[in-house]
């Protein structure tokens, strides 16, 4: 990879100042996507700003929500007992990302800021109607994801934490690509006092999306049978050598049924 200067800010404010000072700089979270990107020379930053010393790791549980710091690793989330009890969908999702070593380094903030169309976390954020807290504002899940590798974040904006409301029920079902372990299709379902939300990742080239027809059917009848006949238009779905668009459309239905059937 090309060389760069490595910067170690001790606070978010310092990180933001560094981003402003160096136009060609990039933030480093867990690095499990970004370091491979650097090796492939797909990105050539002048400065890499490491967030590990900025105090963004940690989980706090409040009466109606769970707040996960941006630098919290997937392994920490997967092992957190209260998240396992209150939002089991998130525990399962975190425990299936990559492999054990990737989960020890990869972070929720890094995953969301990157918005890979096959990443898992965007589906949890969208289905649970979470809010993204940054150094300057809070962004609703519905406004955050903006298509392939694109988010509402400003170039000098830093995610500090993600706030998840505690649902009545949640679950995540993932059909993993057998080699990369990314989601061929991942479906997160959440049932709350204000309704049902279903978010699908991996299937669309535009990234995560809400499945309104599934949401409507499940808000009338929370059961796997209720969505058995619901089809997913395959127009915008990925169509490649791993699977056709029609195959992915079918998987969306199967994963939704599995997620609902196993929801706690």
């Amino acid at each position, binding site marked *: *990879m*090309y*060389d*760069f*200067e*490595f910067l*170690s800010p001790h606070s978010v404010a310092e990180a933001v100042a560094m981003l402003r000072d160096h136009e060609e700089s990039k933030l*480093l979270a867990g*690095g*499990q996507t970004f*370091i*491979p990107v*650097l*090796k492939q020379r797909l990105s050539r930053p002048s400065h*890499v700003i*490491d967030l*590990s010393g900025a105090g963004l790791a940690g989980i706090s549980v409040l009466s109606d929500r769970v707040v996960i710091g941006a630098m919290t690793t997937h*392994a920490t989330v997967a092992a957190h007992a209260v998240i396992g009890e209150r939002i089991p969908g998130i525990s399962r999702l975190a425990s299936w990302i*990559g*492999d*054990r*070593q*990737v989960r*020890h*380094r990869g972070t929720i903030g890094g995953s969301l800021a990157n918005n890979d169309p096959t990443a898992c976390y965007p589906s949890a954020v969208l289905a649970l109607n979470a809010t993204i807290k940054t150094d300057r504002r809070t962004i609703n899940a519905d406004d955050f994801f903006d298509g392939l590798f694109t988010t509402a974040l400003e170039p000098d904006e830093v995610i500090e934490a993600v706030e998840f409301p505690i649902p009545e029920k949640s679950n995540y079902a993932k059909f993993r690509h057998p*080699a990369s*372990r990314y989601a061929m299709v991942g479906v997160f379902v959440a049932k709350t006092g204000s309704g049902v939300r279903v978010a699908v990742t991996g299937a669309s080239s535009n990234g995560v999306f809400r499945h309104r027809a599934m949401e409507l059917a499940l808000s009338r009848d929370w059961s796997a049978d209720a969505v058995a006949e619901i089809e997913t238009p395959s127009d915008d779905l990925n169509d490649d050598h791993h699977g056709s668009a029609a195959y992915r459309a079918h998987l969306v239905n199967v994963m939704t049924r599995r997620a609902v059937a196993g929801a706690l």
Partner: protein
Amino acid sequence: MMEAIQLRVNGEVRSVDVEGRTLLVELLRDKLGLTGTHVGCDTSQCGACVVHVDGDSVKSCTMLARQANGRAVTTIEGLAGDSGELHPLQAMFREHHGLQCGFCTPGMIMSGVDLIHKSFGELSERDVRHGLEGNICRCTGYHNIVKAILAAAAMMAGDREISAKSADA
């Protein structure tokens, strides 16, 4: 740009100059001469480069050396005892023929030790097979690797019970 970092490697504090782009595995192999940690794929798939950072198994080809500043790194060279006696998992790899060409072995052992340490004495065959997802072996078919890890887990759990009992006494 070169800058000095300080880290603990296999118990010893080391101070090394590294570039921003230097990978942890490059630091270990090229600067510190610890060539037991292997580079297989260099794309975080194969797990030949697994080491422990502050007790967690990580792929040292997908971590920058600067990210290890101030941390404790354990490599395969740091597992055996001072007098050279093998770590129980190394001994069980030999006993159960858990390697053929040996290229993946350091990573397999570092991942296996992490799995055993965090299993609190309850490690099933399924846990081991699932836990080795990030380590690829092209020779053995994994079977003897799994056997070796389960055998070492049983030995280490036994050791824990014995030391707990002697602590009680």
